[in-house]
């Protein structure tokens, strides 16, 4: 464990009855990075986070937070948590919820400061049970932040948020990372990981099947997308050896190709009036789909 590694799973296995949830998993979250944990349902994301937080113990391997056992409450005083499913007491008002959780930390921010940071000041006196789903997520985010944690665990934080609230949360997350905090994020919104994450790990069947920066993950998918306006017919283009698929809509012709450069050369040679040529690499979503399909039974 280096000084820069704030959370770590090392050779961790966890089994629930006959189901293997994690199978020799290694993960590291470093200081000052936003780390996105991706994977299909049942991949082991929640179990991995539970082990890092000390909510469960590994059958084999070790889980560490700041070089210490996550079971120690002293260790967790550096951690903020936002869970996907946690129904807070509906009778307590928002500022009371924050006051309560802030009391667990040695040097928390005030409830007012936490609400300002998460744009929830207007909800301060509202009972938590009367909030909308999106407002509850924002309050849970404020609760995760109120102890000034070094490391934030966010499980699907933007589910149920409108576009504006999501943008505000993203902006706060970027600010936190810029100021040196680390964030572990699980999300089903791959665009969220694409926009925010410094590093991504894709889990499937309890193992890491790929990890690296978003660009490195995209590069794992060789295929690229080509779009253009051309008089060439789809049938003709489909006969070219490097073309995987082709379609046409009112924007023009769309081609998916393994070797994009070769297809572009053929396009330009076949149609000298070709216009609006655009070549795109695969997105994280495509990389994710391809990676997880490879491990599907």
């Amino acid at each position, binding site marked *: 464990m280096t*000084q*820069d590694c*704030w959370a770590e799973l090392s050779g961790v296995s966890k089994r629930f009855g006959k189901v293997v949830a994690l199978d020799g998993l290694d993960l590291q979250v470093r*200081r*000052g990075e936003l780390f996105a944990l991706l994977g299909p349902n049942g991949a082991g994301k929640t179990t991995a986070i*539970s082990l890092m*937080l*000390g*909510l*469960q113990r590994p059958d084999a391997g070790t889980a560490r937070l*700041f*070089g*210490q056992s996550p079971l*120690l*409450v*002293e*260790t*967790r*005083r*550096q*951690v*903020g*948590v936002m*869970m996907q*499913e*946690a*129904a*807070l*007491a509906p*009778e*307590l008002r928002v500022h*009371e919820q924050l*006051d*309560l*959780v802030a*009391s*667990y*930390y*040695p040097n928390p*921010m005030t409830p007012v*400061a936490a609400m*300002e*940071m998460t744009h929830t000041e207007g909800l301060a006196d509202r*009972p938590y049970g009367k909030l909308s789903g999106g407002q509850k997520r924002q309050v849970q985010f404020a609760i995760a932040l109120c*102890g*000034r944690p*070094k490391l934030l*665990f966010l499980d699907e934080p933007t589910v149920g948020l409108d576009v504006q609230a999501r943008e505000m949360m993203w902006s706060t997350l970027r*600010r*936190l990372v810029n*100021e*040196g*905090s680390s964030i572990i994020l699980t999300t089903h919104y791959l665009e969220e990981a694409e926009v925010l994450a410094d590093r991504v790990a894709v889990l499937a069947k309890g193992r890491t099947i790929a990890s690296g920066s978003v660009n490195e993950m995209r590069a794992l998918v060789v295929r690229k997308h080509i779009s253009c306006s051309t008089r060439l017919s789809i049938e003709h283009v489909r006969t070219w050896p490097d073309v995987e698929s082709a379609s046409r809509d009112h924007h023009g012709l769309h081609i998916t190709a393994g070797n994009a450069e070769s297809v572009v050369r053929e396009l330009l040679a076949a149609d000298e009036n070709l216009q609006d040529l655009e070549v795109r690499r695969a997105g994280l979503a495509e990389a994710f789909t391809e990676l997880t399909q490879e491990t599907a039974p």
Partner: protein
Amino acid sequence: MNASTFALSRELPRVSAMPTGRLFGAYLTEAKYESIRALRAPAFAIPFLLLPIVLYVLIGVFLIGSMSNGDTKIAVTMFVNFATFGVMGPGMFGFGMFVATEREQGLLTLKRALPMPPTAYLLAKMLMTMLFATIVMGTLIAAALAVGHLRVTAGQFLLIALIEILGSLAFCSIGFFIGTRASGKSAPAFVNLAYLPMMHLGGLFYPLPKSAQPIEFLSPAFYLAKLGLHILHAPSLDEISFGAASPSSHVGVMVCAAVLVGVTLLFGGLALRRFQRLA
């Protein structure tokens, strides 16, 4: 919020101990908000704060009082029995329903992931129960002084209040035991399955037939009421009906105290073992 709020040192953060004052504050804050939320929950606060006083005045004072021609001994007996009834509910339902629901809906898991002091959750619920028991005892004593025709000194009132408030912990343990095992939806049913027989078969509201009286020995409520009656030198309803021949008349102070402590430790211990395995 200024930009330095999250400024960090360049080193691996050291695990820092909470200052003792803040740690104590965390326990108090947890207890404070546990009590506030329980007081604001109408389905919890209304029955457990109002029902004891309403039933005591209607049944314990006016109904039984009119039937007993102002017998002050029966008046004391009814006061103690309704006090016992009043302190049972908050502990059993407060722990049984809240623990089961919070376990099922993820709040307990969140609190375990957060740096909540490990025992704060349970202590807060115990203190909430004791606050409810204190309010119940306060209202019952006020009613007893106003309309109860009791010959009881202030010191005896204080002593009986203390015993009933501490005795409520036995019912916390039973509720906690149920709360760690039942689901949120089934917990009220299971708590009622324990609460109602315990109350009715504990001899609190009416004497049981002599042959059925040994059933009372299975009810912790019987021992708490009996303890209170010993303190105030008052007979149980069984003794009023059947005299010294009543089987329950031989149960002494030490037996009552030992059973209540035993119930608290047994159910509390079993529940705690289960609770520590829950996440």
